[in-house]
């Protein structure tokens, strides 16, 4: 297990390195740079040239890449051209916001999806069919459209804020409530398809688990059905969900982009979007690396979760 984890870690480092390098080179290759973007059309060429020199954008790509590598080796990932702050300082801040959103969505999806899956998997009938149909509908809803609709509803009803993460002038307990209030729409938009997926996975696994001999044996012994389903069968049936959990964490973390943009949530996705728009080379590189790191971490968490749920994996 430890050797395996070490190997995964090595792979993650390599991955982040390659993704970061590719983003740096590709962002430089793409037409336009921070200076053309910042000064626009009709700017004095001398002014633009000065600015370019100031940002180190007049260097050839390879030189710039070499410089970046030398700094990155000392954990200095450059200074964002757009925000004038070190990339290494900007990203954790925004990543925390994204993590908050992703974890809220995950929690919501788990709390809604898993129990519903257990119910629909263990009690065939009209209720199970209804749950299943709703799940199918939700699975087919593109998150882009869901979040657009939510924002629209928020605008028309005023029940929820139309984006942002916090209001002005709140602190202490009020701030927590306020952030939760802002969190609701993006988290729900993100959680719905995941909840549906959990429900489906759990339902199927539950149905299968209930046909297993050990369940029959337990039933024969007179274990009450509630305990049978929620304790004995669930323990076995949780495996498929556990195996995708980490992957879901990864995709939620790196994949809340479109929701962040639509709902103006100041997370990593919005940061990357702004960085891409402004051609902020170092920030784009940093964001891409962070995204890759999230995904890699997700797959490690996935393996760990599976190990926790299945002793056989642990033994390997």
């Amino acid at each position, binding site marked *: 297990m430890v050797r395996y984890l070490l190997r995964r870690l090595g792979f993650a480092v390599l991955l982040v390195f390659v993704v970061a390098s590719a983003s740096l080179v590709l962002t430089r290759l793409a037409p336009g740079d921070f200076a053309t973007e*910042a000064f626009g059309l009709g700017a004095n060429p001398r002014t633009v040239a000065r600015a370019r020199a100031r940002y180190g954008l007049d260097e050839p790509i390879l030189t710039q890449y070499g410089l970046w590598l030398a700094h990155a080796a000392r954990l200095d990932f450059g200074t964002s051209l757009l925000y004038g702050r070190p990339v290494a300082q900007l990203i954790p801040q925004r990543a925390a916001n994204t993590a908050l959103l992703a974890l809220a969505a995950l929690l919501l999806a788990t709390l809604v999806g898993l129990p519903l899956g257990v119910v629909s998997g263990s009690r065939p009938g009209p209720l199970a069919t209804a749950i299943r149909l709703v799940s199918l509908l939700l699975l087919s809803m593109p998150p882009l459209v869901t979040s657009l609709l939510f924002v629209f509803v928020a605008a028309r009803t005023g029940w929820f804020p139309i984006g942002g993460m916090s209001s002005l002038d709140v602190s202490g307990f009020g701030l927590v409530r306020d952030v939760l209030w802002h969190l609701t729409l993006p988290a729900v938009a993100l959680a719905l398809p995941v909840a549906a997926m959990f429900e489906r996975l759990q339902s199927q696994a539950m149905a299968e688990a209930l046909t297993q001999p050990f369940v029959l044996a337990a039933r024969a012994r007179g274990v009450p059905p509630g305990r049978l389903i929620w304790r004995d069968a669930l323990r076995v049936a949780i495996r498929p969900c556990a195996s995708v959990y980490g992957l879901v964490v990864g995709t939620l973390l790196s994949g809340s982009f479109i929701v962040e943009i639509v709902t103006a949530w100041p997370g990593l996705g919005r940061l990357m979007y702004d960085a891409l728009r402004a051609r902020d080379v170092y920030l784009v590189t940093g964001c891409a690396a962070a995204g890759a790191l999230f995904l890699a971490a997700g797959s490690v968490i996935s393996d760990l979760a599976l190990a926790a749920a299945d002793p056989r994996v642990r033994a390997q």
Partner: protein
Amino acid sequence: MQPGGTLVAAIRSEPRTFNRYASRDLTTEIISRLTQDKLIRINRATDQIEPRLADRWTRSADGLEYTLHLRPGVEFSDGVPFTSADVLFSFKAVYDPKTASPLGDAMRVGGRPLQVSAPTPSTVVIRFPSPFAPGLRLLDNLPILPRHLLQKALDQGTLASAWGPATPPSQMAGLGPFVLSEYQPGQRLVFTRNPHFWGKDARGRPLPYLDRLILDIVPDQNAELLRLEAGQIDMTTDAVRPEDYRSLKQAADQGRVKLIDLGVGLNADSLWFNLNRKSKAGDPRAAWLQSEAFRRAISYAVDRRRFADTVYLGEGVPVYGPISPANHTWFWTGTPETPYDPARARALLAGLGLTDRQGNGRLEDRAGRPVRFTLLTAKGSTALERGASVIRDALAKVGVTVDVVGLDVGALVQRFTTNAYDAVYFSVYSTDTDPALQLDFWLSSGSAHLWNFGEQTPATPWEAQIDDLMRRQVAAPRLADRQALFDQVQKIFAEHLPVLQFVAPRIYVAMSTRVTNATPALQRPQLLWNPEVLAVRGSSGTR
């Protein structure tokens, strides 16, 4: 007028800097208008100059020298008194070659800086290097910076990177009505009233009226509109897009927002071709692509009425030159019009040897090559994208194939500055109504000389003529003479059509009904050009 309260406006992008001398984007300009002040300001509503930090001035007999008397008792927001040394410092900074300020060009006359001296702490003498008719209007470009905070940066040659977005608000100070108190990246900028601000209203009450002004960062224009309608922000950054008119009208009918018609705008989106000879040297299409007759044919081929209907939902007037009829002082009423006439367009194209040789409805040149060019435009702007598609469809009807390509602005600018394009359709904003303050567009050596970027000396006799007329126009003392000279410029422009305009849209702005005392202007920023007099009804913010 009720003092106090909080107003929330929106901006489209993060501030790249708090240093107006290092950036010319709209966000920086808005922040500068909130936190800094100028010696003299152009009142955007009346288009006349008004005294600010300089409260009166005299002019020398030769008209080249102005003596400005600074308003007494003015202090920076950190309590340090404002003196003529700060003015001297600001001029030095804007001309500093290491800073290479984007404001530098606008502060030069005939390519030469103004001579500035400060005989006393409360007077400044400004001498123009050559006669300059707009005179002190020029000073509207220059916010005054605090010498006591930035002298070191200027000495070290790092002024351009000073006051970056990570600067703590406490390390900055200004003479404007507000001070930055908090910047939450990705979310908002909070400005509080500057207790040291010098301004008073007509009844002697201190300005600004507002206690706080918030700039919410809303990159998406649709989200911005929704927030305005829901009362979460009080005003939008820019004019109302035509496609938003409908929902804003409904909101206005319900009394939630105010929708204000400012009349025909000063700018029409521009179509221009790459007339740089060298960059098209090997291109067989250059013969027609860079010809005047081709541009004239396009002008005839586009139905401007239809253009206004499709792009601006009918809210615009046809224009045939770079000066909009809304610019009453400078618009030449004799501007020749090219009414919609596809037959005439076809005849002009045939005159270039472009005819339909294969009978497929599309034109070919004498060698049988198709008549086809690429039109670059900026992605994401409905008006530009729709305008480009109207042009494409209009030209398809006369047999010319246009490939419209939407690029993001950075990529577009890069192609423009390297002359790597056929044609561009883009919004080019004028910074002032007075053409003498837009020489970067008119002079062949200017940096906004759209159709031949990087040209040092006039490439054609008519560009030389425009250069000459503009130089005389700038120096002529009497308005009537300047107008006559500028009419000639517009005449030459209309003869050669280096840039085509089709429709100038009507400008609408929208704001919350709780905002009072706003004086919207045609130019950007329409509502925040005089933030000190804005006020809100009711108690502090809606949020």
